[in-house]
């Protein structure tokens, strides 16, 4: 049957990855009807939600997995995938298991995770550092130290797009790297406002202050435009999730040669396991409902996982697949994943509301040099205190 799938994967690498999913699904004798909406989740999500609540749901839809679809599930609008999961043994194969936990509400599974996206990466342009005459840094501190040299060479040290989620994400990455996994969990999982106001986090804010200074002058909006600055050597580096790798690939750059990736900013090799998942609205159409099951299982199919994740630059959700084709950076990620150095992503831990407030805060912080780290931290602590 034809199944309309909505998502917001429209950049070059993303689109190529989606094509793999579609190919695999079409191979099952069904048809993937693509419903891409550009402009990231911000544009797409209201459309998806209106359609589901409006009674004209699509066959399947992407969400960041975590809490974005919680209420739709509670309202009984989303389909329970427990049967498929049972049949296909998701509990066993999906690693880390926290991914499936995010899909689980009151014991039932409502989504099919397709990838693991980790935020904690620093992407560096080898060419830029060569031009500036400094060695490619091995960690955040070296990067900060190299900044003046880059600037002198007319290179923006740190590329940072204007979209609010990028600023907020960069801060989270800094937090894991500088304050460590435990503090991260204290703050975001336990919502401990005291820790959030404490000295550990103050350090993180100071680092963010550095980042802010280094990011001055990157007059771009979209994350991939920022990545493009790194690709073309106009910027030294970018803190961005592993999806940035897709752009490097599309541009024909080679990990280790043209660019360098530092997981956990090279300080603290921990990665978060957020990612994308597909949700399946309840449909009346018998045939389509069947197709939904097929799609769900196709998504977790090992071949699909490999093909998709290679293109997308993300990590597969199952550990039992062969990623021989994985490149340098992906391998680093897989290693960390294997070591179990993982944390949950903020999408999973915080409500979208708190996420948005956080984004507002960091978006302002990174754009407004007159906002002191102390003030920002105070507001940050307030947000954490109010989070649920």
């Amino acid at each position, binding site marked *: 049957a034809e199944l309309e799938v*909505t998502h917001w994967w429209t950049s070059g690498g993303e689109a190529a990855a989606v094509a793999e999913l579609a190919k695999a699904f079409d191979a099952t004798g069904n048809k993937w009807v693509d419903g891409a909406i550009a402009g990231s989740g911000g544009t797409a999500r209201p459309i998806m939600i209106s359609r589901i609540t409006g009674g004209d749901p699509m066959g399947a839809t992407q969400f960041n997995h975590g809490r974005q679809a919680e209420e739709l599930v509670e309202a009984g609008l989303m389909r329970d995938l427990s049967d498929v999961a049972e049949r296909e043994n998701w509990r066993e194969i999906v690693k880390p298991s926290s991914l499936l936990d995010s899909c689980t509400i009151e014991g039932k599974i409502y989504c099919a995770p397709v990838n693991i996206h980790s935020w904690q990466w620093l992407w560096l342009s080898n060419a830029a550092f060569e031009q500036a005459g400094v060695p490619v840094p091995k960690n955040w501190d070296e990067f900060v130290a190299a900044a003046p040299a880059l600037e002198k060479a007319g290179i923006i040290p740190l590329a940072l797009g204007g979209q609010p989620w990028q600023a907020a994400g960069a801060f989270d990455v800094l937090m894991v790297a500088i304050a460590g996994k435990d503090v991260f969990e204290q703050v975001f999982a336990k919502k401990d406002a005291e820790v959030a106001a404490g000295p550990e986090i103050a350090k993180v804010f100071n680092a963010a202050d550095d980042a802010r200074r280094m990011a001055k002058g990157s007059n771009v909006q979209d994350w991939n435009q920022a990545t493009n600055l790194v690709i073309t050597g106009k910027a030294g580096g970018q803190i961005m999730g592993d999806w940035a790798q897709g752009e490097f690939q599309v541009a024909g750059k080679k990990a280790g040669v043209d660019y360098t990736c530092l997981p956990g900013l090279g300080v603290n090799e921990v990665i978060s396991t957020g990612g994308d998942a597909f949700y399946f609205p309840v449909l009346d159409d018998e045939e389509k409902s069947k197709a939904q099951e097929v799609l769900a299982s196709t998504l977790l199919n090992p071949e699909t996982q490999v093909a998709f994740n290679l293109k997308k630059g993300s990590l597969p959700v199952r550990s039992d697949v062969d990623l021989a084709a994985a490149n340098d950076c992906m391998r680093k990620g897989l290693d960390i994943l294997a070591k179990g150095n993982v944390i949950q992503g903020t999408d999973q831990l915080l409500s979208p509301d708190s996420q948005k407030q956080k984004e507002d805060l960091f978006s302002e912080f990174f754009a407004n040099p007159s906002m002191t780290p102390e003030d920002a931290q105070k507001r940050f602590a307030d947000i954490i205190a109010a989070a649920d």
Partner: protein
Amino acid sequence: MDNIAKNSMAASIDAVGGRLEDGPRGAKPKRTLSRRNIIVYGTLIVVSLYYLLPLYVMIVTSLKGMPEIRVGNIFAPPLEVTFQPWVKAWAEACTGLNCDGLSRGFWNSVRITVPSVIISIAVASVNGYALANWRFKGADLFFTILIVSAFIPYQVMIYPIVIVLRELGVYGTLTGLVIVHTIFGMPILTLLFRNYFAGLPEELFKAARVDGAGFWTIYLKIMLPMSLPIFVVAMILQVTGIWNDFLFGVVFTRPEYYPMTVQLNNIVNSVQGVKEYNVNMAATILTGLVPLTVYFVSGRLFVRGIAAGAVKG
């Protein structure tokens, strides 16, 4: 020849108090470069440049290749004219998996715009007519509500309207979208039509009533034929508004009905590495072409219609 001679003769003989006429005669000489002309035309030309500059940049850019754009001067004319960006924008640009550019949404836009424009104008003109000529109790109250509603941000109304459409069972259909456009076009259009009809001589309406024409007969046979200008205004406002709408088109329909602007948004907002400015500009112009055409075709009537309708508050 003869005539001229005679005239000048007459003029010189024709004297006041016997003395020859002198001093200024005929039209006051006007220099083309008078101060007034310099100010008036100078300002207009400078202002026109401000208005035309973006259009110029759009066109020029859309005719350049990406390498040329990367080199930099956005104002420079294209060294090598290429229509590839136009082709790409129209037929090749990708959104997710669909790589058929704007062409995909074009007919949808037409299918949405035509009925929406017709129905929203029909409904609003009847409203305006009823308000202006058949003032019933409470009509002013409803009208005031409508006017205030012109200020409500559309986003606020998305949820209530989703609920209403769902209850009506037209969510996701073209019908639903047409209803939405009709609803949101109603405040301003009703204001326009009401003022226009109120400006028509009331006696015409009375005469028709004495002649036995009822509500609809008067509307169709008397009022409509007299209201072309205001209908043109309404049409232009609606065509531009509905054609350029993105939010409703995407929120209240399903992908097979997505209008051209969804594609435009996708082209403009889905960035593949560097923004393909030339394609964006071509897409932009292509999308704007329909309202622009409508506008150029009926521009004169537009101003006349505004003069007739909108002006009396």
